[in-house]
């Protein structure tokens, strides 16, 4: 039960940060998504995102900064395993499932459905 509460709190708070940016700045949702992935990646690189994942579980992995964390943490892991080449192979290895699923189901749904109105 506690895992669900923590996921709710951490995930909710990350979205509140996004909402503040939306309402108080002129950033578009696209800018915020890009910003969050980059921020998540940087926080991951300096070792601050993994603790958030340990606390919030899906509350930290489901929001977009979690995608940045996946990219950077799997890059570091690949560098540990295969050295220099890992800089270029790690990120996509880690994000392979997410990107492929997004393209396949994104395409399928766009073909199957039509916009409302």
């Amino acid at each position, binding site marked *: 039960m506690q*895992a*669900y509460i923590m*996921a*709710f709190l951490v*995930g*909710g708070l*990350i*979205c*509140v940060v*996004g*909402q*503040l*940016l*939306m*309402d*108080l700045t002129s950033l578009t*949702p*696209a800018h*915020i*998504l890009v910003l969050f*992935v*980059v921020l998540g990646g*940087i926080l991951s*690189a300096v070792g601050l995102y993994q603790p958030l994942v340990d606390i*919030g579980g*899906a*509350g930290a*992995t*489901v*929001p*977009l900064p979690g*995608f*940045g964390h*996946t*990219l*950077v943490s799997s*890059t*570091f892991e690949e*560098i540990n395993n295969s050295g*220099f080449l*890992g*800089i270029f192979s*790690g*990120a*996509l290895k880690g*994000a392979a*499932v*997410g*990107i492929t*699923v*997004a*393209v396949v*189901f*994104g*395409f399928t*749904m*766009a073909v199957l*459905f039509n*916009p*409302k109105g």
Partner: protein
Amino acid sequence: MSLNDSGYKNQQFNQRYQKMYEQVKPKPPLVQNLVGAFVVGGLICTVGQVFQNYFLAMNLSVKSASAMTTAVMIFLGALFTGLGVYDELGRRAGAGSTVPITGFANSIVAPAMEFKREGYVLGVGAKLFVIAGPVIVYGLLTSVVTGFIYWLIH
């Protein structure tokens, strides 16, 4: 002369109109938006946690369980965008529906669906990446730059 004159009057009118508009324009109800984003974003992540726990209970590793959870959440975001439900939710939830990975799926399906009439290559195929493209570009740049620094240090 008279043309210039009317141009000046026009400009004056526009300025006055702009001022009036700024005064009466509805301010975004910030607190209400923040609560909406918190609740909806929190709930989406809680759904993610349900799948995460389910996959962990199936004896998947943490990494595989996270990947499966991401896959399911993307599928659901894409499906509900197709059904027209997700954008309805977004009108109320703002960032609460944009920031989770389901919003990333929404940003892929919505423009692809919208531009389907431009064909399957330049319509669907290209517009899938209108927002996902920049996200992947900057995400990869971040991981290569931080990865290079990490490689230098270790």
